[in-house]
């Protein structure tokens, strides 16, 4: 046993030679693949769905009605059989509202303008480019679709550990504390509202799925359709990867903000304020 100096240098030399050769060979044969596999979560390739929410139009519409506008939320919850539990602790949130100060807590301003102060902003899953929920899921029940960047849920795999709920900095995930079919009847008279879409069982986590089932058919998400139907057009859904898309055009022409950008999750939801 024992390697003399000459032997050691020989081995080191060959190792270096093959090591470099291997990397170079991969770069030539399959460019980019090695880099992609080195990252924890495969980044979106090709299409990247996103939404630009024009809060000026949304707030104008909300102020026009007596109880504000709830069209997008009603449409979403009808499409996905989301029950109303009548208890905020058990609320299932796919699309919901919160005050500006709570939505953008990292830009505190005591003297913020009246246009946004305490105003209800529309919230949903950000479908982050770097989703922390996906990274923590022990069963890969939640995953980022490589084809279009949608952060999707595979309900069949969810074990209800709620790691994702702890990881998500936006509160976009909700836990089913009870069987949705046992939600109070008086609050959900015509439940299930969409017989073409499944419900969930007790003990799974759910969230906005960017209407993956409608997008697959070439339709816009239910919330966007509802907003367009009342001719407000505050919700704009499009491909961030296409420089000519509607969302890219809006982003070019307006100043937009995202929620908690410092966390590095790279949300795909943009707000025009």
């Amino acid at each position: 046993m024992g390697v003399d100096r000459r032997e050691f240098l020989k081995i080191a030399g060959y190792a270096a030679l093959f090591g470099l050769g291997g990397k170079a060979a991969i770069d030539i044969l399959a460019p980019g693949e090695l880099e992609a596999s080195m990252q924890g979560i495969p980044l979106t390739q090709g299409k990247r769905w996103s939404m630009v929410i024009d809060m000026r139009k949304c707030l104008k519409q909300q102020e026009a009605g007596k109880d504000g506008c709830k069209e997008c939320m009603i449409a979403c919850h009808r499409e996905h059989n989301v029950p109303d539990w009548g208890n905020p602790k058990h609320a299932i949130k796919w699309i919901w509202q919160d005050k500006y100060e709570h939505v953008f807590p990292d830009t505190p301003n005591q003297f913020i303008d009246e246009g946004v102060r305490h105003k209800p902003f529309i919230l949903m899953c950000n479908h982050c480019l770097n989703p922390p929920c996906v990274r923590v899921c022990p069963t890969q029940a939640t995953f980022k679709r490589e084809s279009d960047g949608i952060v999707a849920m595979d309900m069949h795999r969810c074990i209800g550990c709620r790691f994702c709920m702890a990881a998500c900095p936006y509160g976009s995930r909700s836990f089913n504390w009870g069987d949705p079919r046992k939600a109070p009847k008086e609050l959900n008279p015509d439940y299930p509202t969409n017989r073409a879409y499944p419900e969930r069982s007790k003990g799974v986590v759910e969230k906005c799925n960017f209407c993956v089932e409608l997008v697959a058919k070439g339709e816009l998400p239910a919330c966007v359709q509802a907003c367009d139907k009342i001719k407000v057009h505050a919700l704009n859904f499009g491909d961030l990867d296409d420089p000519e898309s509607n969302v890219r055009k809006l982003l070019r022409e307006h100043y937009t903000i995202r929620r908690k950008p410092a966390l590095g999750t790279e949300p795909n939801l943009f707000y025009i304020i």
Partner: protein
Amino acid sequence: MYDGGKIIIGLIIGIGLFLSPFFYNAGKAAKAPDPELTAKAKEAKVCVAQKSYMRESHFTLLDEWRHTSVRDGERYYTASDGKKYYKSLQVTCLDCHSNYSKFCQQCHDYVDVNPYCWDCHILPEEKK
């Protein structure tokens, strides 16, 4: 052997009790259920795969469907005859087989399986 007679009698009673369900049910085998087809299913004549395959392995197909449609986003299935189907238990399968109790349930009961599909997937409303 002390108290041999009592032990043997006890053993006979014990074994007899243990075997009693077999004697009780002897010769009364439950009839294998015959799944009923709805008018729509009869009219269609073919399912997404061959009848024998569907009979024995529909769960394998459903498992494959759920995996490929949910995780890979492949939402259409091409049958061997080239016909395309939307991969959905609730929308495609139950559209023809809308008689859950006569088509799914009686066989599942017979073979004592409890698939949890229906915890989330909505069953069609059956006409009584």
